[in-house]
């Protein structure tokens, strides 16, 4: 019965995103992005074809770069979607009082939090599948190229979305919607800046800068997941140069960081379930 109730809330959450046209808006904008992306790639590739006599390797570098650029945008959109859909899901329902008829049913509060989390997690997964899959399809269609480790990379993008989601759900268990938004995007910003400090530190060989970056990744592993995905999907050449606009392999997050992120999501989610139990509604 617990599983059923959690799934009812998960379904309701997913359903809410589609009924409130959040999903529709995200998909329309996503489609627009894919169309622009497809036209752009097609234009660039036909230009290259006209130039002719292009080294196979250079051709592949360009495709890799374009693919990564697309995923970079999708990663950003996923972060936005993850936070914007979930930031008021608890705090909003507490302040409007809609949560009162739900949690006075024969269920525990953590079931509500977990159900909502699952609903959003599914939503984010679907979004990445459609957007990432769409972008990869565009590159494959026009350029006959697929990023290495594409699906694992998309998995890390999903994990990034889940990190944002989990922190936002956690904040919602005790903060107002606005304060929660400030918290989540603030942490995201810290991790983002920390990630770049780490990369530059790695290039110039500054250990302190690298450590600052690692510390921010531990506090908020979101950016690290993108870096890990970019590291996996980069071309060999970029790997050898050690720097691209998306990643510097001098200090890329290790596989261990991925496990850390999984544990992070699990623990913060557990903490959220616990915090919400004690709240006066």
């Amino acid at each position, binding site marked *: 019965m617990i599983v059923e109730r959690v799934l009812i809330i998960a379904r309701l959450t997913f359903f809410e995103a589609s009924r409130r046209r959040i999903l529709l808006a995200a998909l329309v904008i996503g489609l627009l992005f894919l169309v622009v992306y497809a036209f752009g790639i097609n234009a660039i590739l036909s230009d290259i074809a006209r130039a002719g006599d292009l080294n196979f390797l250079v051709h592949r570098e360009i495709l890799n770069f374009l693919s990564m650029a697309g995923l970079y945008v999708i990663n950003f959109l996923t972060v936005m979607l993850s936070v914007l859909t979930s930031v008021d899901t608890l705090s909003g329902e507490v302040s409007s009082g809609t949560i*009162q008829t739900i949690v006075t*049913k024969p269920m525990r509060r953590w079931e509500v939090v977990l159900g909502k989390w699952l609903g959003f997690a599914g939503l984010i997964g679907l979004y990445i599948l459609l957007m990432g899959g769409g972008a990869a399809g565009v590159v494959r269609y026009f350029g006959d190229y697929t990023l290495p480790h594409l699906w694992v990379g998309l998995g890390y993008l999903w994990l990034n979305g889940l990190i944002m989601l989990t922190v936002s759900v956690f904040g919602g268990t005790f903060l107002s919607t606005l304060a929660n938004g400030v918290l989540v995007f603030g942490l995201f910003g810290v991790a983002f800046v920390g990630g770049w400090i780490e990369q530059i530190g790695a290039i110039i060989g500054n250990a302190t800068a690298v450590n600052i970056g690692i510390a921010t990744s531990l506090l908020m592993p979101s950016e690290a997941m993108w870096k890990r995905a970019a590291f996996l999907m980069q071309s060999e050449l970029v790997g050898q140069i050690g720097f691209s606009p998306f990643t510097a392999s001098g200090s890329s997050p290790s596989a261990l960081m991925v496990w850390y992120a999984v544990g992070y999501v699990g623990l913060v989610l557990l903490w959220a379930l616990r915090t919400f139990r004690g709240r006066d509604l």
Partner: protein
Amino acid sequence: MDPTPIISTHGLHKSFGEKTAVADLTLTVNHGEVFGFLGPNGAGKTTSVKMLLGLVHPSGGTGEMLGAPLGDPAARARAGFLPEHFRFHGWLTGAEFLRLHGQLHGIEKSVLAQRILELLDLVGLVDAGDKKLGAYSKGMLQRIGLAQALINEPELVILDEPTSGLDPFGRRLVRDIVRDLRDMGRTVFINSHLLSEIEVTCDRAAFIHQGRIVRAVDLHESDVPVVRVHARVGALGPEVLAGLAALAADVQAENGTLAFSVPDEAALPGVHRYLVEQGVDVYAFRPEKQSLEDLFVQLIGTDGGQ
């Protein structure tokens, strides 16, 4: 009928920081009665109800509802609740809303479908079942919220200001539903600041003021809970007043006027005799049956406790 109380609390208390919302809630509600919880706005009614349902964690004290400690999910399976200023997601239709709450109770699909139809009919929303809640008026929302509180055929129904936002027709509907529930042997707990509402629908009522229950009255003993006497008298010594306090309640004496309450008229001659025997000159002796409103004003003050 089950002789153990359906709700019993002992010294429940809740503070939010410095502010005390409920100072001492000690009350008993019996199976099968319609219980009115009366008080001015801000007296602590909603916080009290939220403590019963586990929405708010008490700062102190204990309580039981439906034979389990407060906040027990299994006990909530047998309760229904209509919150104050009821609202729900506007993107659900009325029928979907009821289905959701029925599913959370684990009601079987076929049973639930039938019950949704019955409840929509009961609250007069048959034609609005397919409309989104966002398009509902305040009164319609209140009705669908009431239907939601009944979806699991609860033994105990807790209604927080059920008639707020309702037109006279809606108020009558609530009154009829409460009456039906009582006839079926269910217990109803109504929070209200509307005295007339409580007077008409309830068996028993408790007054709450500044977070404390100041009086519980049985509304069936007679239509009026007490007889209030307003007298004009000569000089009154403190020992006379002390003696009077043993015979009557809520004694007030000021500038030759005297007021006190006795449970019923049979007590009047005894009090009168006492005053005369004590040598008090009695110029006027006017007993008045009290309405709930008089009692409310007397207990809480004309300023409504603000």
